[in-house]
């Protein structure tokens, strides 16, 4: 279990709290950034994964920015961790998709909900790109 998986789990369980949405958005933005940096760091290690990791980096940047543009849930400050290896990114992306889908359902502001949906779609595509079994 990585630091980011812990954070995602905590954010999911705290969504019902008053600041739950803001916390979730901050965690999600940081996880996207961790995925992006992980993809960039490891993109040279395996030519067969170059395309998957480059598109992962692009989707992660888009997902992160989608959250940064939301109306009320502003990403919180989180210290970045070490780069994540590609084999960890798919699972992280799946957990991220779940958190953002739940956050979208709880958002009162349509702009926040839309931002979470867009970010969830990015996370879902990252999972599809990196899942070894294609599921």
């Amino acid at each position, binding site marked *: 279990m990585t630091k980011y998986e812990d954070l995602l789990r905590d954010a999911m369980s705290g969504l019902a709290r008053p600041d739950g949405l803001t916390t979730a958005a901050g965690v999600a933005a940081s996880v996207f950034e961790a995925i992006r940096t992980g993809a960039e760091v490891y993109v040279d290690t395996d030519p067969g994964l170059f395309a998957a990791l480059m598109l992962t980096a692009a989707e992660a940047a888009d997902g992160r920015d989608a959250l940064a543009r939301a109306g009320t849930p502003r990403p919180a400050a989180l210290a970045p961790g070490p780069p994540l290896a590609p084999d960890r990114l798919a699972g992280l992306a799946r957990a991220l998709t779940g958190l953002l889908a739940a956050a979208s359902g709880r958002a009162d502001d349509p702009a926040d909900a839309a931002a979470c949906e*867009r970010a969830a779609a990015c996370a879902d595509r990252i999972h599809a790109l990196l899942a070894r079994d294609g599921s």
Partner: protein
Amino acid sequence: MTATFGEFLDRAASCLSGAAGVRDLPSSTVIASAVQLRRFTTAVSRYVADPRTFPAPAEATTAGVRLYQAAGSLRRAAEAGAGLPGPGAAHPLPQRIGNAASALTAGLDLLATHFTTGNDGVTRPRSHWAATLATPPARTALLAELSDLAVLAASACRALGQVPSPALPRASRDALLAASSQLASIPPASREHHDQRNAEPVYRQLLHAVPAAMLPPREPAGAPEGLADLSEAVSLSAERMRSLIWQPPDGGTWPPPPTLMTWRWSAHAAAIASHISEPILTGLAERARQLMPGPAGPALSHAAIAMGTSWNAWRHVASASAMLSDTVAWNIPPPVRDDLTDLIDRLGRIAYANPAWTPAASQRAPLKSPAELAPGPDELRMVLAAVHHTADTLTRLAAADLAAVQAAVGTGKIRQDTSPAYSSLSMPGRVSELPRLYELTRDAANRVTEAIDLPAITTSAPSSYLAVMRSAPVPSQASTSEPALDPDLARFRVLDELYAPRNPDQVDRASKAASLWRASFPGRPMPSAEASPARRPRATPPQARHPRAIP
């Protein structure tokens, strides 16, 4: 894939070649064929009458005169044999000749879609093909194509004039043979320079590849395809992107307002497409040395090295732009995203031993061996064309994005995000560096495409014409504002001045008409006001651009 100009040329040639081989026909069918050959001559004359399609006034004048004479001869042939009993136009031959005429008319309509004439009478480009089509070598090649068709029509006239049918009037025979001589003497444009002669096949290939100036429908990658289909689909995606990227010389909006996300995604995708292309070029280099000894192998090796530099540049610019954001939030997807996705999927299926390859990790596969990549020379050309189209399009994309980045950075529309989530990523100076990174990326992409041009031409790859397309001068703002009247509009204006109802300022009208004519058609006699009423212009400007003056 949508129809190309070459398909119309080929159809016309195919229809006419059958007519040249006739040995016997009912005389009424000979006359019906003469009528259709006159239609064909009229169709060719419409190309000739348009100064934009001709390389020089001398050839235009000569060809125009010969076509005028041939049309007159064919009219006399038809009139002399009018009313002959028999199957006439019910025979398949006149229909086939008529199809040739229709194909040529449709071809000219296709070419016309690449230009537009404004209310000010100025002709402007409407597509990325326009600049190349207007170059003298392209016009020379077009005249050569028309000259070839005229020779076929001449053969048909001669064959028709020699059928043994005793019912065919002597006057019709003589007129058909006269038309044959007139059509056969239409000169191709002079090729004064050695380079021009050498380049003609490439320009002919270019003409054959010209599609209508409209966005062809997208063909997403789906079920596994054969190599020919993959290569064709890559060229389709590339053509779609060229159309989407192109902007008229007097302004445009590329990319649309969602700036940073557009460039960022494109840069990542371009890095992938280039990354896939590098081992393809390496494999082709090895294969070319085995299959086509000559300069292609070393040139492809050089191109592969350049491609390696290029994908690194794209990757660098993608990484740099991932740390920036727009000052205004936009959520519109990049306009070329789908096409870049299609292109990457197909390129991957060409490069990797997985016919269902996608960028997903679950679809990873080993690279094909050079022999699997290009089993023979034909396959080598197809694969090379796919990479050539890719490189050419990415070069245009880099140039367009550079211009947009420069504008956005210059007006402060991009920032280094300083929100807490990005604080640890702060890298001062990145915004100002972005245009320079894009310049390097554009230059690297350009070097790749130039490196592929040579092997594409030497191996006669179907993408060779891309080399001459990129070398066409880009019309400047100044050139588009020159008083280059659209020929049809000019004719209309002149004739309108002559034929419009008289009023007190008719002297000024005549003077103005003469001035317009001289400006539009220097050296050509102005039509007289006493011309046949049938040739009077309509009350409104012609919508079609083709002149109708033919006997």
